[in-house]
């Protein structure tokens, strides 16, 4: 069954959408969009590092994304205004990665696959990484859900209850790196943040509790993945951006529906 590239692509896109939908809620609640960008852009630097040392791409991406995530985690602990620093890191990592890849002798790699995703070429190994990563992300978030939520609503409430919000933040940081490694093959480094934010934002108007929002975000992410994949085949458009376009369409639909409901009340 996994011999069919279309089935592999569908499974890869669904697995990615599950992980990004879930983690994306926290990205939206905690306003970590720029943080997502920086971690995702670092993935291109990871591609360069992997090529340079002859590592597997996924290892290079994972390691550099993890390093970037930990760096940002360290910076945010010191009460700096991190917005500007994040901007420097995000675009610095992207530019450095783009330059570094071209400097590697004897390598003519199609960087588009890592910038915009290339889900139609996922291998069985890629699929294993994607679903393994998505499973780890879901499991960790399910186990630590209440702590993550309390720390997100108010660090001080978490402290008073004997929780350590810094630890919860570190967990989200590590999960972000994992999601980047999972999603790069599907949507590419430039659009990972889109897949984090848009399904969660579209789910906001439908939900009454954080759990509902996470569930809807996963469903909307999944629908975007399936719809985007199908449309990209029909119109012969790049898959990653098409998935994001569908997600934006669902977001707009949700926003209009929400407005209509508010008016009819």
């Amino acid at each position: 069954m996994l011999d069919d590239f279309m089935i592999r692509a569908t499974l890869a896109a669904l697995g990615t959408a599950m992980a990004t939908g879930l983690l994306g809620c926290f990205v939206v609640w905690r306003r970590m969009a720029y943080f997502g960008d920086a971690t995702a852009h670092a993935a291109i630097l990871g591609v360069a590092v992997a090529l340079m040392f002859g590592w597997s791409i996924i290892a290079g991406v994972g390691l550099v994304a993890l390093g970037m995530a930990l760096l940002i985690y360290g910076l945010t602990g010191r009460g700096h205004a991190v917005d500007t620093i994040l901007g420097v890191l995000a675009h610095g990592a992207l530019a450095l990665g783009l330059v570094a890849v071209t400097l590697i002798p004897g390598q003519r790699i199609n960087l588009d696959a890592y910038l915009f995703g290339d889900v139609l070429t996922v291998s069985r190994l890629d699929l294993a990484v994607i679903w393994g990563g998505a499973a780890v992300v879901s499991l960790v978030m399910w186990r630590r859900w209440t702590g993550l939520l309390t720390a997100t609503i108010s660090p001080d409430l978490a402290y008073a209850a004997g929780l350590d919000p810094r630890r919860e933040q570190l967990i989200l940081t590590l999960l972000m790196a994992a999601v980047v490694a999972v999603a790069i093959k599907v949507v590419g480094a430039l659009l990972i943040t889109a897949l984090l934010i848009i399904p969660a934002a579209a789910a906001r108007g439908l939900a009454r509790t954080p759990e509902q929002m996470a569930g809807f975000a996963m469903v909307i992410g999944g629908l975007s993945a399936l719809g985007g994949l199908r449309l990209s085949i029909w119109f012969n458009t790049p898959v990653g951006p098409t998935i994001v376009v569908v997600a934006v369409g669902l977001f707009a639909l949700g926003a209009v529906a929400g407005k209509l409901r508010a008016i009819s009340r």
Partner: protein
Amino acid sequence: MPCLPTAGAVMTALISARGITVRHGGNVVLQNVDISLTAGEIVTIVGPNGSGKSTLLRVLIGALKPSRGQVTRTAGLRIGYVPQKLHIDPTMPVTVRRFLDLPNRVSDAAATDALLAAGAPDLGSRQMTQLSGGQFQRVLLARAILEKPHILMLDEATQGLDQPGSARFYQQIDHVRRDLNCAVLMVSHELHVVMSASDRVICLNGHVCCEGTPDVVSAAPAYRELFGTGTGGALALYRHEHDHHHHDHEAAD
């Protein structure tokens, strides 16, 4: 600074902080502050803006590591914390009922009881982001008492409430305290209301200026230096209600 014993209180401290110094950047926010709380007593911290009141509470709940000094808690101490402000990001949908489940799930019956005790019944299905200021504070109080805390800590909990609203809120706290038999540590600027209900008042201005029963503190020169001019009315009200002795330094305005 001597700690005045409170009648009937068990004198083992639930929580005590010794020599707390907090530096923020180059500024010393708190210097060598001692504070301790025993079971069942009501202690109020008063002080002008920027005197380190909120900082001290955050040190006590463990949110802030002091530059120097130590906080000791009895084992298994539960603190119900009502913060000064809590901003829930509008991107997060959360009903009052769901909010009460943080950080631990509670039964529906317990949630209903807590909302009733906090004076906010029937709010369970509302969104947190749609509550009025008073309703929000009551829900925070309900959440704090669900843990059956040994200490209830309130940081300017009536900020943003009008006068009748905050008076009702303090009544609610008094009921809650009697039900739970917990200690209460509160920070407030509403001197006459909070001081009259307190066993002990700590006047803070970076350091502990004075400490003792409400009438001792309100008569203390350090306190009058901080609050003497601006709050003559409030003090007069306080005296009128609770102190029938005449002091020679009492102003005749």
